[in-house]
């Protein structure tokens, strides 16, 4: 199950990055060209990701374990406490 979820996460991540323009260097470069011809498009990518993750984190941080697991893995224990 863990492997399946990890696979889906990777799949979503890659597709999201592609859709957001991260696979095109000229878009990334334009975002960093703050003092020249700035393209703020990538702010949408980060803001969107933070919005989703922030919301989900607040909703789930007091849970005893992840949704699809029985207990929290040691690396994440501090986060769930």
């Amino acid at each position, binding site marked *: 199950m*863990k*492997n*399946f*979820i*990890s*696979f*889906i*996460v*990777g*799949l*979503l*991540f*890659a*597709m999201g*990055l*592609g*859709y957001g*323009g991260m*696979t*095109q*260097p*000229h878009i990334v*470069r334009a975002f*960093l*060209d*703050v*003092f*020249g011809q700035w393209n703020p498009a990538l702010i949408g990518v*980060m803001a969107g*990701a*933070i919005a989703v*993750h*922030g919301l989900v*984190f607040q909703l789930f941080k007091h849970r005893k374990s992840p949704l699809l697991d029985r207990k929290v893995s040691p690396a994440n224990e501090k*986060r769930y406490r």
Partner: protein
Amino acid sequence: MSWRISFILGLLAGGLVLRIYFPHFFVLKTQAAWFDYLIAGLFVGFGTLLGNGCTSGHGVCGISRLSIRSILSTITFIGFGILGVLLFKLFRGDL
């Protein structure tokens, strides 16, 4: 440990889906020499290791948790990214 491999396989699968169904996300308007990419990759890898995280780790997960370390990390690497582009424009004409 095997979930890490599954994650990478998922990434590759995502790339494949993009390639087949959305090839316009790979349209390149810039081109750099192969050693530029190599050096850039080495720096990204080393920096991510040193900082215990990257744009996704610190930038997304860290900031969502309101982690001071992550906010500082994000400001640092974005700041240096901006500086990098600035220096490239000054000394190499453009990327």
